[in-house]
C-alpha cells in the first residue's frame, strides 16, 4: 500500500471538497507496467484530442507520470497513439 499520510509534511489540512482521494493507478497495481507498445493503456491517459491528461486529474504520481509521458511520446512516433485528432472525423 502506498503511504497514505502523504499530506503530513504540510500543516494538517482538511481536504476541500467531497471527492475521494485519487490514487496513482501504477502504484496501486504493480502489475500494470508503462510500455510504449501498449497503445490501449496509453490512450486511457489521453484526451479525445490526443493530449496528455495532467497528473492532477488522473492522480498519477510524479514518477509514473514522467515514465508515462515518455512512453506516450515514443508511442506517438510509432503511430500507436495520435499526436492530435482532427474534428470532425
Amino acid at each position, binding site marked *: 500500500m502506498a503511504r497514505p499520510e502523504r499530506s503530513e509534511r504540510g500543516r494538517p489540512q482538511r481536504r476541500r471538497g467531497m471527492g475521494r482521494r485519487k490514487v496513482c493507478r501504477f502504484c496501486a497495481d504493480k502489475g500494470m507496467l508503462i510500455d510504449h507498445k501498449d497503445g*490501449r493503456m496509453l490512450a486511457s491517459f489521453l484526451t479525445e484530442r490526443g493530449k496528455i491528461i495532467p497528473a492532477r486529474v488522473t492522480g498519477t504520481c510524479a514518477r509514473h507520470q514522467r515514465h508515462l509521458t515518455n512512453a506516450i511520446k515514443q508511442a506517438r512516433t510509432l503511430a500507436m497513439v495520435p499526436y492530435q485528432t482532427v474534428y470532425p472525423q
Partner: protein
Amino acid sequence: MADRRYETLLLIHPEQGDAGCKDLIGRVRGLIEGQGAAISQVQEWGVRELAYTIGRQRRAYHVLFEYRATPAALAEIERNLKLMEPVLRHLSVRQGENAPPAAARFAQAADAPAPRPVREADEPVAEGGETAPMAEGEGV
C-alpha cells in the same frame, strides 16, 4: 564493450505483401545478427491500424525484435534501418536487464478485447488517507 538489451519495433509498408514482409524480416534478422547481436525474440504482430497516416498508409505490418547488442552495433543497425525504404517507422529502446520479455498481449490488435486490470475500489487506501490527517489535526 558490454552488450545491452534492446528492442526494436518496425513498421513495414503494407504493400510489401506477406512474402515481402517475410523477406524484409529475414534481412533485418541478418542485419542484427551480422552485427554480432543475439536475437532472443521476434514477434510478428501482422497488419495493424495506425493512429495517423504515414506515407499515405493507414495501416502497417508490425514486427518486434528483442536482442542483445553493443551500443556500436545498435548504431549500425539503426543506420541500416533508415536506409530501408519499406520501413515506415522504427524505434529502438533499451530494456532493463531484469525486465520481462515483451508480452504477447501487445501483439493483439488494438480493437480486440483484452483483460485490463481495473482496480479502484478494492483497497481502502482512500479512507486511510482521509482519516489520518484529521485525527492529527484534532490532537494538535
